[in-house]
């Protein structure tokens, strides 16, 4: 696995909604839910979305290991599948999918679910690696304002927000700022 | 059109003395400050201007007959008049080649019909400029042709050049050489050096020119028949000519404006407008050509005006034809880029070339009793070269966008204004 991406510090003037301890509890709960929903972890593959979802994927992977469930964890970069490509400067990263995903259950992991466009891009990108039996979605924060018919399967915290607010979710906590 | 009386009032001569010039029936009648001007005379205002002899170009490609899409004798003559010229030597690389009495006559008639400058056809040295068989030099000389050249290429064959010089020595004519040893220059589209190496373009070494200059000097030394070197472009050529002149040989040389203003660095963006033969050389060569003009090694500025259609210049660097326009910018470039005293400027742009072309009885000097071929220059006018506004049919000037200082205000040919206030009169 690649080195852990360093979490960004809370934005100046932001408000802590969850602290590091709460994040840890949420991660453990989500790991339990994943096992429960899939009747174990057989065939489950965790893929974090580059960059924001990678830390959470790794944290969930660690929590699953604590439960005795050894699940492959990777990451997937969706730059090439974004619908705003060409409109702004981009910095694509390597995708690392550690196992074949055919007939597996892929759990996509991201930090914050907002419009749903990133998840849409990830679903497209996934096709280039194979045909999973099912795809599930885990996010630390669901802040609403969906623009596409996408809904999470595992949520750390539902957080009503205004459209113009910024939400950051790292291993150190969740922060809302203007 | 009747010449009548014409006065050029309020200007100064090349030496700085103020003088009006009065012309009656095509002949200069008076040159004096506050000269008496006939009541019926048309008057050209020359205040702030320099009044000198009409310019003479030894080297223009007027493209007619054969390539009228690029230029005609008429459009080329108009460009010449606007450039201050009253006489132009037309190069023989037309289709058909000027290598017989009939083509000489045709070009001369086209020149008379255009009526803007005196057009003097140069004849080819070899038939079809193919370098194999001598053209009928005597037949053309009998019609008054005084310059012969295969310009576009040099006469490669040593023996043929020797024979041509020997044959010409009895005719009182001058052979003019485009010095380029084709075995060394073949395929080259620019000067061979640092820039060609960087740009990945095949080059022509300086030696391709200098070897032929040296050969012709050797032949001239033996035979004594005059040789004129067209568009010398390298420091080595300038030095060879300098030494030959010091030895008293009857050699003369010309330089083109682009060789004293531009270098091979101009090709960095692969603009084919800068492709020309001989090619733009190095900065050291450019300086040497300037020095040659200053110290009289080089006798004339000659334009090598070479119009090409946009379509042909839009080919690749390998396929585009060489050559650039010159008639409308030569004087301004000389004024802007060379620090020549005015008498020397008229020496290299009028009297020198008139002597080489053997037309000095009509051109090259402004004097009482002489044919009224006059050029009036406003040395203070600054203007930007705009390729769309040139009188030439073609657009291939390398100076587009450049601001030059000094412009022709009036040109008078044989007593008639061909250009008034910067406007061609026909």
């Amino acid at each position, binding site marked *: 696995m690649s080195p852990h991406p360093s979490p960004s510090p809370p934005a100046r003037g932001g408000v802590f909604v969850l602290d590091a301890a709460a994040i840890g509890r949420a991660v453990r709960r989500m790991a339990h839910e994943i096992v429960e929903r899939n009747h174990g972890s057989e065939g489950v593959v965790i893929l974090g979305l580059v960059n924001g979802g990678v830390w959470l994927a790794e944290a969930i992977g660690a929590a699953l290991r604590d439960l005795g469930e050894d699940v492959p964890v990777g990451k997937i970069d969706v730059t090439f599948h974004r619908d705003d490509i060409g409109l*702004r*400067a981009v910095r694509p990263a390597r995708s690392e999918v550690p196992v074949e995903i055919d007939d597996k259950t892929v759990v996509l992991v991201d930090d914050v679910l907002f419009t749903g466009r990133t998840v849409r891009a990830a679903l497209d990108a996934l096709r280039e690696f194979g045909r999973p039996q099912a795809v599930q979605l885990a996010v630390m924060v669901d802040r609403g304002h969906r623009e596409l018919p996408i809904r999470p399967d595992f949520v750390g915290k539902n957080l009503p927000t205004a459209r113009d607010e910024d939400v950051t979710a790292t291993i150190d906590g969740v922060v809302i700022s203007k | 059109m009747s010449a009548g009386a014409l006065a050029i009032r309020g200007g100064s001569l090349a030496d700085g003395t103020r003088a009006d010039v009065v012309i009656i029936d095509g002949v200069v009648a008076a040159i004096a400050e506050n000269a008496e001007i006939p009541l019926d005379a048309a008057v050209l205002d020359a205040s702030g201007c320099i009044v000198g002899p009409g310019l003479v170009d030894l080297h223009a490609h007027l493209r007619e007959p054969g390539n009228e899409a690029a230029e005609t004798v008429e459009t080329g003559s108009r460009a010449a008049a606007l450039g201050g010229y009253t006489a132009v030597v037309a190069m023989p690389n037309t289709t058909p080649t000027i290598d017989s009495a009939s083509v000489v006559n045709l070009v001369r008639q086209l020149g008379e019909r255009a009526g803007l400058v005196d057009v003097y056809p140069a004849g080819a040295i070899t038939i079809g400029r193919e370098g194999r068989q001598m053209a009928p030099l005597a037949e053309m000389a009998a019609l008054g042709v005084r310059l012969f050249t295969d310009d576009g290429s040099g006469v490669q064959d040593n023996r043929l050049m020797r024979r041509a010089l020997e044959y010409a020595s009895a005719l009182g004519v001058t052979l003019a050489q485009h010095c380029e040893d084709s075995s060394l220059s073949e395929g080259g589209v620019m000067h061979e*050096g640092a820039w060609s190496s960087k*740009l*990945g373009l095949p080059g022509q070494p300086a030696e391709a020119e200098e070897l032929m200059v040296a050969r012709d000097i050797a032949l001239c030394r033996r035979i004594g028949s005059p040789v004129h070197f067209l568009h010398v472009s390298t420091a080595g050529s300038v030095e060879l000519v300098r030494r030959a002149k010091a030895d008293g040989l009857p050699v003369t040389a010309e330089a083109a404006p682009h060789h004293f203003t531009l270098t091979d660095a101009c090709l960095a963006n*692969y603009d084919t407008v800068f492709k020309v033969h001989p090619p733009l050389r190095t900065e050291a060569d450019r300086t040497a050509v300037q020095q040659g003009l200053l110290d009289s090694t080089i006798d004339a500025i000659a334009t090598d005006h070479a119009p090409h259609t946009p*379509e042909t210049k*839009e*080919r690749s660097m390998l*396929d585009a034809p060489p050559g650039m326009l010159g008639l409308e910018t030569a004087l301004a470039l000389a004024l802007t880029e060379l620090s020549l005293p005015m008498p020397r400027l008229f020496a290299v742009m009028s009297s020198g070339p008139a002597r080489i072309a053997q037309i000095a009885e009509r051109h090259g000097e402004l004097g009482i009793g002489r044919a009224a071929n006059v050029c009036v220059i406003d040395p203070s006018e600054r203007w930007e070269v705009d390729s769309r506004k040139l009188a030439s049919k073609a657009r291939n000037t390398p100076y587009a966008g450049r601001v030059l200082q000094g412009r022709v205000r009036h040109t008078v040919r044989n007593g008639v204004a061909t250009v008034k206030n910067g406007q061609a009169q026909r």
Partner: protein
Amino acid sequence: MTARHLLDIESLGRDGLDHLLTLTDRFVEVSQRRVPKVPVLQGKTVVSLFYEDSTRTRLSFETAARRLSADVMTFSVSTSSANKGESIRDTVETIEAMGIDAIVVRHKAAGVPWQIAGWTGASVVNGGDGWHQHPTQALLDCYTIRQRLGGLEGRAIAIVGDAKHSRVARSNVDAFTALGADVTLVAPPTLLPASLDAWPVKVEHDLDAVLQRVDVVYLLRMQLERQEAGLVPSLREYSTFYGLTDERARTLRDDVLVMHPGPMNRGVEIGATVPDRPNTVITQQVANGVAVRMAVLFDLLAGGVL
């Protein structure tokens, strides 16, 4: 917004090279996916305008464009056709009227990509111009060296052969030296450019001596027409003194890379068995070509520079 072009290596500079090599790495990963195709250039059209036959380069570019989901138009103008003297501008304007985003051009004359860039609103990619530049070849060569040696900084590279007539040599000298390598040209003087004054290279004529101190031997193609033009007495003599013969290759350290832009003339510049040597990376160069060209097209057409 004016179109961006890839015309030569020099204008990329070290940062531009690094950027494209990093991007290449991403597309190498994409190329390894089950479906090696991403939708980044959907709706864009890339034209390959090849005035000189080069099936491998053209296919490499076209494959790259397709893997980015661009539409591809092929416009082949063979050198043998009667089109030699046609106005390139007319051709370009005709193509442009069809609505295009990039032109990949290959021409026997140096500078044609610059001319075309002046006549079109599309991005121009130099696919090889005369003796001048072949920037995507240089990029794939740098990428290959990086893959095998970790980087070019401080590496000694010998470029052996006809540098005078070689766009590969010109672009690789620029790229290798920009990335910190130490480049030596090895060739008979008749096959070197007329002036090397401004070139940041050393020149040597003793191949055996040079081979003992380099990390990479880059062989250039030696063409029969150089013998015909009298630049070398014979290909046989060339091979004896400047070829990486099987015998010479055995004197190389095992870790020395041998590279060649292809197509090879076995028995002339390269010994018959040299391509099979473990650190001869010629097929790897070709394999990296597609990813490099994906990176270039992606950067020009979707790099999202505002």
